[in-house]
């Protein structure tokens, strides 16, 4: 009973976060904040949903359910590593390609670059 309650709370919070992710992905104003919403919400809500599933699997504890639970927790582990890394890589690529920032005044400002101009190399006909 208690276990079921915990599982329901975990899954529901995961679903709410997924909803928040989707809303953020669709409604945020610019590239950076959209990717940030997708990356953060996706990771945590996947982890919460799978944590709920793991607990539910382990309600009758034996070798078979333990194996399934270990597999699920491996998924959590790799999503936890891969998803934020992918988000980081996408945002870094956008920063490098000078995707403009959003600002409250409405005009889109260029990304202020700490990377000097020469770092981007256009090469022709080596």
């Amino acid at each position, binding site marked *: 009973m208690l276990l079921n309650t915990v599982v329901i709370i975990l899954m529901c919070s995961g679903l709410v976060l997924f909803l928040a992710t989707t809303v953020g992905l669709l409604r945020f104003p610019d590239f950076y904040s959209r990717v940030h919403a997708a990356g953060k919400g996706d990771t945590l809500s996947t982890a919460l949903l799978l944590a709920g599933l793991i607990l539910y699997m382990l309600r009758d504890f034996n070798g078979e359910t333990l194996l399934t639970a270990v597999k699920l927790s491996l998924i959590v582990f790799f999503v936890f*590593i891969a998803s934020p890394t992918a988000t*980081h890589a996408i945002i870094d690529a956008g920063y490098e390609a000078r995707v403009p920032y959003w600002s409250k005044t409405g005009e889109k400002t260029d990304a202020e670059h700490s990377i000097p101009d020469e*770092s981007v190399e256009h090469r022709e*006909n080596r």
Partner: protein
Amino acid sequence: MKQLTFIILIVCALLMLKAAADLPDWADPASPASTHLSPDFLEQGYVETATPNIVTVVLADYRSYDTMFEAVVVFAAALIVMVILRHTPRKRGKTILYRPKREGRDTILQGAAQLIIPVMQIFALYVVGHGHYSPGGGFQGGVIFGASFILIALCFNLRFAIQRFREQGVLVCVAGGVLLYAAIGAICQVMGYNFLGYTGLASILGASDVMARSYGILAVEVGVGITVMSVMVSLYYDLASSGDLDEGL
């Protein structure tokens, strides 16, 4: 010329449609394939090859010619991309490349890659080896293994990946996988059976006829896996650097 092509295409399409009218209906239980082939595969597959996964049995045993030439098609794709893109010293490209220099800003990517890539490679070997029992096999495992090398090239840089898996090695693997497949078939033929009739491996491996077919399937899957893996790496090397194999994305 263009109209001629168009006319030929229309004639071919009409011929195809005419022929398709004679085919048995979709999923017709009375069609020859459903009355003879499928029941035979399902009933005899495990008895004849000791491999529970019927898909693998059909792919790598009953229809192994088909699979061999699929591997050859993949091989040819890698060669063609190489012929089109790869620069030789005499033929320099005129492509303009957008090449960000990003040394020293990849710590996060590299750390994650170091955690994930070994697991990916072991999982790829598992997928190849477990194709007898579960979905998987040479094509899927090869793709996962190739993706791990592409991940190295993405998270570090192309030069780093090429140092570890050089072009010559990639090409040897591209050809070697297909050759391994064909060699298995040739060994069977030398032993007096049909080309790719894995029963011929029985006396070499010292196993029963049934187990020999299981081992033959595994060897063939490994060949396919090697080819697919190295073809993916080869395509990535050529496309990412547009043929320079020097530095890329």
